[in-house]
């Protein structure tokens, strides 16, 4: 008897939850209203069945429950062919009513309109990049085999179509409103999935294949790109944004992009020119980039050039050192501003890269063994030995001063660093840093990083077995 009441209450409660729930589809921003409509149809049909069958069951339980020894006997009724045929027929009609619109809309999804423009989404562990065709409207060919530090997307340099391709190394993509677009999806490493909740459609990125999806953005705004196919440890931090712009805003953004040819032509920084600028830095960071604790200036020597460039750019552009609680960052920001242009940034970074590496004093103590366990996560991006990895945008950690590492971890965790909207990879580090829940966690992991030898040979780092067997 209570079970019947419970069934009724659950049905009523489910309906109430459905209508009262604040959690529902995000407001749509693409042409796929038809998907929402199909969902509505499915909801009505299945909802009706849910209510009808459960209420019928509840009634049956109340009506035919055993009421003691005098209770009426059950009816002997092996089957009722007519009733079963009716039920089968009705079910088939209901199923068809849901399936038909579904297949109709799927046909739309599979067939891309002729006038759709194309661009490429490239996924890798754990970031998004994009490539747009240049003025010729064609993307050059590409291959994972061509990927290296100077050609991160593996564009074929021999293909003339690729020369004017526009490369977006940021995880933010812009789209013009109301123009159908076909996204070509490509992965450099493992499976990923390109998903924007407001667009409704999603598709996996498969290494070795080019998959696609298409849509027409119908609403300006900024939307999150999430990876929705488990792609390893950093899966949940593989984020991006897509900005739907008016045509003018989009054109302006597109004009600021660099072509593949321009990118390949970028000259490496000149350390000699950089040396001339370095005395400004030396005042705080020391003549050999050794860092000065008293001035809260970290060690620079031994750090990767590309990372120094990124950070100088961030300081200069107000992406880093702008938070009111980032006292020391605020000191650095105006110093970075004196670097006039990209070339100056590259030169100074190139000079700093030539400074000799030397060991640092440690000031922290912690449980190294526990720190090593925690470091497993860190090591996935920063390298098993803290050597840093350009591919994951992760700076070198070993040989870094512990007080500085700790302060930056605290900044990330506390939302002082890595929260700026323009910061490309800081938010990822912020997401990961929050796995350190207490100060002790931080101390332990930093204590472990202290034990990482600065002089480990790069080649020993990669476990041979991880690299796919021998030749």
């Amino acid at each position, binding site marked *: 008897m209570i079970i019947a009441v419970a069934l009724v209450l659950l049905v009523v409660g489910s309906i109430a939850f459905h209508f009262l729930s604040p959690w529902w589809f995000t407001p749509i921003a693409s042409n796929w209203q038809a998907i929402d409509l199909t969902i509505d149809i499915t909801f009505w049909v299945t909802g009706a069945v849910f209510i009808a069958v459960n209420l019928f069951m509840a009634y049956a339980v109340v009506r035919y429950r055993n009421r003691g020894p005098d209770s009426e006997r059950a009816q002997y009724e*092996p*089957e009722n062919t007519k009733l079963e045929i009716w039920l089968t027929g009705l079910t088939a009609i209901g199923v068809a009513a849901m399936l038909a619109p579904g297949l109709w809309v799927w046909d739309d999804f599979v067939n891309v309109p002729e006038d759709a423009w194309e661009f490429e989404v490239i996924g890798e562990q754990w970031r998004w990049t994009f490539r747009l065709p240049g003025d010729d409207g064609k993307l050059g060919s590409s291959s994972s085999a061509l990927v290296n530090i100077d050609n991160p997307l593996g564009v074929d340099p021999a293909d003339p179509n690729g020369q004017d391709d526009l490369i977006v190394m940021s995880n933010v993509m812009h789209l013009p409103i109301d123009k159908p677009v076909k996204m070509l999806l490509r992965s450099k490493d493992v499976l990923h999935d390109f998903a924007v909740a407001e667009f409704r459609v999603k598709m996996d990125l498969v290494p*070795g294949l080019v998959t696609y999806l298409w849509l027409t953005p119908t609403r300006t705004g900024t939307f999150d790109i999430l990876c929705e196919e488990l792609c390893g440890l950093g899966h949940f931090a593989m984020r991006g944004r897509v900005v739907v712009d008016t045509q003018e805003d989009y054109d302006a953004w597109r004009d600021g992009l660099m072509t593949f040819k321009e990118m390949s032509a970028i000259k490496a920084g000149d350390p000699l020119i950089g040396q001339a600028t370095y005395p400004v830095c030396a005042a705080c960071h020391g003549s050999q980039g050794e860092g000065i604790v008293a001035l809260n200036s970290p060690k620079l020597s031994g750090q990767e050039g590309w990372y120094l460039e990124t950070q100088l750019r961030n300081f200069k552009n107000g992406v880093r050192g702008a938070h009111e609680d980032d006292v020391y960052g605020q000191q650095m920001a105006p110093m970075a501003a004196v670097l006039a242009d990209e070339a100056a940034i590259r030169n100074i970074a190139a000079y700093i890269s030539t400074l000799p590496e030397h060991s640092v004093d440690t000031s922290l103590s912690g449980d190294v063994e526990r720190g090593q366990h925690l470091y497993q996560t860190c090591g996935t991006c920063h390298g098993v030995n803290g050597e840093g990895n350009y591919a994951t945008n992760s700076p070198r950690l070993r040989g870094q001063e512990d007080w500085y590492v700790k302060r930056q971890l605290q900044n990330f965790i506390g939302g002082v660093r890595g929260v700026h909207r323009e910061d490309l990879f800081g938010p990822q580090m912020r997401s990961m840093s929050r796995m350190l829940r207490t100060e002790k966690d931080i101390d332990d992991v930093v204590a472990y990083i202290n034990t990482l030898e600065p002089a480990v040979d790069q080649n020993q780092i990669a476990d041979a077995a991880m690299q796919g*067997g*021998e030749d």
Partner: protein
Amino acid sequence: MITIVLFIFAMVGFAYWWLWRQRVLEKPWAEVGPKADTREEIGRISSAAKTGLMFFLAVVTSVFALFISAYFLRMELPDWSPVMKPEVLWINTGLLVLGSGAIHWCSKAAASNNLRAVQVSLFATGLFTFTFIYGQLMAWGQLNDEGYYLNSNPANAFFYLFTGLHALHLLGGLWVWSRTTLRVLAGVELEEVRLSVELCRTYWHYLLGVWIVLFGMLLST
């Protein structure tokens, strides 16, 4: 996936046909009494061991059909380069045919209670089969010498996989064969090993069939 889907269709089709013969359309509540049992009339495989073996062979067929499906799907991809087929495979095929023939002879001999013939044919079965496996190993050696390594091309990998898997199944059969042979040598009544020999016969014929399919597929692609 066509191969495996066809295989499953065949299995499901057979199952439905068989069920239909078992009168799954009848109304079981309408008839009372033990006589409703009609298994005797519609004929069936005589022993549990044989039924079990049939199901086992279905499982093994499923495994090979899946590998073959994977083979055809993988073959479509651009990096495929066909593997060399060592000549010794032809000799091996002949050996397996002989092994299969020997166990067939053995089951006839067991049926007619001819102990001497059972002993000889059992020995021949083992000899031919072991030589077959040795010959397959030789084929591996030749491939390796020619530079067709397991991991240098998927075609090579499939070759090693198919031959290895097939040989493993034969080794399983040889285990049963060795137990049977030991019992025959220990002098048990032929009646007691007759079932084992019959099961072996079915299994050898089956694996010969599998090998012919695999070999034909490897030759033609």
